[in-house]
Structures are given as C-alpha cells and as structure tokens.
C-alpha cells in the first residue's frame, strides 16, 4: 500500500534520479561486495535462493554496503581506509554518484539510510584528531554532503538504524588508526569502545560500555532486534588466548553485557568475530572467519549451534532465517534446525552481507 508519505518520497526521488524498484533489479534480497577470480571487485546482489541477481563493478575492494529502503540503489563502501563510496543504480548498473570523503576524512566501510530514505549516514575518521565522525548525505538530492556529527567515540565502524525506528546505533570500536601507518593500531592501551544510540539529529540517547577491564574488546559490528536490543560482535585486542567472550547484547535499561562462550570454542577463534545478524526475534547469528565457523545463539532457549565453513564471514537475516556467505564463494541458509548450502559462485564474498529492506 502506498501511503501519502511514501508517495511523496517517491516523487521527491523521481525529481533527482530515474527510480527503479528492487524488483526491477532482479529482486535481490541481499548485497555483498566480492572479488572475482580475475582480481576485479564488484557489488553483487543475491536472491534469497543464493543465486546472483546482478553484478556491478567497483573501482577497488569493497567492505559493506547500504541498501536504500525503497529505490534499487545501493551505496558500496570502500575497504578501510578508503575515501570512496559508490551509489549504484542496481537494475541497470549505472553509477549514480561517487561519494568522496571530505578533505581530512576517510570512510570506515559502513553506512546506513534513514527510515524515509532521505539521508545517508557514514562512519568516518577525522584523521588529524582521530575523532569518530558520522557524515550526513542528502540521499534525496544527489547525495550532497550536508554536514557531520560526532560519533561519540574513536573508530566508529558499523552504523545501523534500529528496525522500525529513527534511532541510529553506532559501534565505536575505540581503535585509533592513521592512513599514514595503514591499519596500525595506535592506542591499544587506552582504547575505550562503546555502543552509542543516537537520534538522527545527533542527540546521544545512550552510550553503553563494558567494564573497564574489558576495554580492549573492540566493538565492531552490530545488529538490531525489533524490541530495541542490539547484538554486538567484538574483536579482542589483547592476547588472543586470553580472550573474553566476543559476543554481547545490549538491552535497553540493562546495558551492554557479554554472552557466555564455551572456553574451548573461544580458543579457536583468534579473538575475532567478523559479522553479526539478528535471526528472528530471539536469535543471533555471528561469524568467526578466523575460526572458520558461524554460530547461531538462541537467547530464549540459551542454546547455540555451529556451522563450520572456511572463511565464513557475511551473515544477514533472511525472513526468519539467515543467509551466510564466505570467501570461497559459498552461500548458505541457516535456519533453526539446519544449514543448507544454496549456491557456490566463482567469487570471494567480502566481509559483509546486507539484507535489503
């Protein structure tokens, strides 16, 4: 049903770009960056059966993408510390816009749209100070840069919009880097990661941290439940054989807590979680690419199951289940009882799988 509001959005959008719906783009349900065997980089649209809906070239290695809520438009972000993001029209493949990080900024690789699709928010580094910034872009007007907000921490990595709300959630990883020294971590002794919830105007609604002894647990990736809880994936920066749990849950009114992990299981993960998704109303899907394993944790039943798959990393909700992708080209469906291989492509899927809509 078309509400007045969505009609007006569509009209506003039409004034700028020829608009096509996601159906016209081959009905993809998910997006992922990928590398082809010839070494070229692409944005790939996947259907829920694991098959490819479209492939569009990227100028360099991607990391994650953001899907516009209505238009068949995706923003593909360069791998950190990239300075480009491409807005692609996903049915014809046209590059609608190339976003450049402003002078003295680079992207961290993630972004999110506002609920009405009019704004795009990107995580950025103010290189000189190391302060985390959220870039604001006008998605209803040619992706003009509108300004920026503080991310409320250092090293903001993933930004999402909590489902059904206007609230943004930001994983401030806490790690300062400088492009001159690549990905070298400059502040491991003093890092202070947090999860920040923010209004679209930049008002900080909540800043949640783990206890001080866990300050080296870098929060990188997050996924929102419909009830306001946020699933959190960490990367431990201390001795990896001394790693605490690297999966956590933020609950409104309770705060941020780590979920218990079996110490034997944790031993093989290198202290590193790659990606996280909510599955249904009470499950978390999380990937550990260095351990070659994904885990689905049922919060209600307090059970979990694992799927072993080399270099598995991308994971996203798919109806009440999840889809996962890996660096070897596999797409698998993970449901409550089992995992099913759906497709095998001659691609290396990059870190993140993004659900459209």
């Amino acid at each position, binding site marked *: 049903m078309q509400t007045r509001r969505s009609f007006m959005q569509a009209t506003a959008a039409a004034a700028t770009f020829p608009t096509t719906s996601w159906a016209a783009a081959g009905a993809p349900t998910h997006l992922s960056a990928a590398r082809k065997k010839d070494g070229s980089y692409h944005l790939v649209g996947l259907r829920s059966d694991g098959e490819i809906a479209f492939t569009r070239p990227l100028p360099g290695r991607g990391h994650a993408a953001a899907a516009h809520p209505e238009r068949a438009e995706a923003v593909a972000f360069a791998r950190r510390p990239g300075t480009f993001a491409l807005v692609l029209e996903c049915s014809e493949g046209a590059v609608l816009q190339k976003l450049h990080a402003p002078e003295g900024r680079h992207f961290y690789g993630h972004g999110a749209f506002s609920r009405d699709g009019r704004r795009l928010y990107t995580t950025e580094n103010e290189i000189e100070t190391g302060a985390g910034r959220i870039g604001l872009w006008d998605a209803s007007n040619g992706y003009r840069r509108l300004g920026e907000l503080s991310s409320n921490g250092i090293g903001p990595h993933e930004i999402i919009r909590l489902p059904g709300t206007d609230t943004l959630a930001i994983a401030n990883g806490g790690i300062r880097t400088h492009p001159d020294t690549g990905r070298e971590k400059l502040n491991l002794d003093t890092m202070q990661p947090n999860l920040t919830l923010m209004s679209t105007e930049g008002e900080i609604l909540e800043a949640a941290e783990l206890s001080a002894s866990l300050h080296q647990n870098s929060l990188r990736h997050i996924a929102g439940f419909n009830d306001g809880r946020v699933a959190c994936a960490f990367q431990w920066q201390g*001795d990896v054989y001394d790693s605490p749990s690297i999966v956590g849950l933020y609950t409104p009114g309770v705060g941020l807590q780590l979920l218990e992990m079996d*110490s034997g299981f944790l031993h093989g993960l290198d202290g590193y979680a*790659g990606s996280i998704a909510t599955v249904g109303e009470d499950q978390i899907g999380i990937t550990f690419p*260095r351990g070659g394993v994904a885990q689905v944790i049922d919060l209600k039943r307090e059970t979990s199951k694992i799927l072993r798959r*080399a270099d598995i990393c991308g994971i996203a909700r798919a109806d009440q289940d999840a889809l996962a992708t*890996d660096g070897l080209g*596999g797409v698998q469906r993970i449901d409550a009882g089992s995992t099913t291989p759906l497709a095998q492509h001659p691609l290396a899927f990059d*870190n993140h799988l993004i659900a459209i809509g």
Partner: protein
Amino acid sequence: MTLRSVTFCCALILGSPAFADLIAVRDNHILPRYAAFAEAAGALEASAETDCTAAAVMPAYHAAYDAWIGVSHIQFGPIEAHGIALSLSFWPDPKDRTGKAMTRLIAEVDPVVADAEAFAQVSVAAQGFSALERLLTEPQANADYVCAYTQAIAGHIAQAARDLSADWQGDFGEIFVTPGAAGNTTYLSPGDADRAVYTSLSTALEFMHDQRLGRPLGTFDRPRPNRAEARRSGRSARHVVLSLEALQEMTNAFSEAPLPEVNSAFTAAIDRVQALEDPSFAGVAVPAERFKIEVLQRNIRDLQVLIADDIGAALGISAGFNALDGD
C-alpha cells in the same frame, strides 16, 4: 618449467585441480600417524599402570607426546568432531588454566581421577600432555594422588588416540577422499577436502611462527623464555622439528608434482632448529642466540608464503580473504 605452469596445464586438461592427492594424504600420512599415536599412547597408559613414578613414565610420555605433535596439525575430521584437541594439549595458556585446574584437583584430592568418564568432564586444561608434563617434572607432595592422576591422564590420552585412529580407519577415511559425492555432508563440494588440508598446513605454520616461536621471543626488550611450549620437559624445539617433519610429509603426499623449493625450505628450517641446540628456547634472552631464533621465525614465514604461492594458488584457494582482512 616451473611448478606453477605444470599444475596449471594439468588443471586445464583435466578440468579440475590435478594437484591434490587425498588418498596419499590419508594412506601415507594420516592413517599411519594416527596408528602410531594410538600405539604410543597405549604404551604410555601401560607404562603408567605398571609404574606411575615420574622416572618410569618419562620415556613413554616423550614417545606419546612426539606422536601427538606429529598429528596435531591435522585439525579436520574426527579431532574436530570430537572437539578434543585442547584436552590433549592445552597451550598457549596465558592465564595458566592448567596450573589452576591442577592445583584445585590436587588440593581437594578430587576422586574424579579414579573414574575415566568423570575425568573427561574436568577442565580440558587439566586432562592432557600439558598437565602430565607438570606431574612428571615438578615436585609433588601427595604421591598416591599424583599416581592416580598420572594414570587418569595416560588413560584419557590413550582412549582419545584409539578413537581418533578408529574413526579415520572407519567412515571418516572414506568421507575425506570423496568430497562432493552425494551424501557427503562434511565436504560438500569437490575442493572442500583440499581446502581442509591446505588450511591445516597454513594454520600450522602460522601457529609455529606466532606461538611456538613468537611467544618465547616476545620483544627484544622483554623476551619471554618461560612462555615456551613444553619447556619443563625440554621439548620446545623438538615440537618445532616434529611439526615441520609432519608438515613436510603431508605436503609431499598432497602434491602430485615434485616440490624441490618447498622441500629445501623445510629441510633448511629443520636444520636451523637442530643447530640451535637449545631444547627449551632459553636462548631468546641471549642476544646472539636470539638472533638465530628470529631468523628461524622468518624462515617459517617464508615457508608459509611459498606454500601459499605454490600450493594454495595452484589449487585456486584464496585462503583467508576475510580471515586475513581484519576489519
């Protein structure tokens, strides 16, 4: 003609990676090594039953530990299904979980050591070679309890070794050589078992570089000789040699083409460890000796790169696209 062009041409002709010989890996490497582990672990169990004193058990301990290190790089298959690798050797252990768990058992004179099934439920850090090493090399007050504990560990290791060997000789041996076949739910596509072998090779070399050598090396200003693996029984360097020998054997079984460059790199690294004459890597704290261990560490990294180029690339495996990206 270089190795790469040889393998490339064959892959084109046969339409599939012609490089990997899984049957040879199974029959000439995995099965005999697990059988040897089962035999050595059985001898350890028998030795501990006959005479549980440290001096009496020590030779069988060394032989069984050698055999375990000779298979510990095989991280796929039954070892993964049973999840028992950590219960056989628990290292690295920066929080000293082994010491803490052992202290508790011994202080409480916990009767759990008399019951194999119950013993399997204690902390994995206290079940295997890492714990046994301490029982055999550190002064112990309660000789009767330590005797029962020694026998419990020996029994656990022997049972695990028998189970692993039997599983490989049974169904799993067949699963491993039929990747992609209908009904093979472990290796869904034809290249999956190759990947498991390659990942084991690569991971084992990385473990050697980062952990077995990297932990005791620490930094120049702060070397950490007390962090060397199995240093109490003087086995640190021995583990590097045994592991290199096992990896070299696996690599050659896996490859259908000769690997002169890889083999000379393996041999050079093994020679270098032996030339150290430093069983527990105490030399990390002595600048002239430390330098030699750092060179060895670089050799291991070079070997890993060589294997990635010659074997990984030939198989079309871009291992760790995500795992190595780190973001």
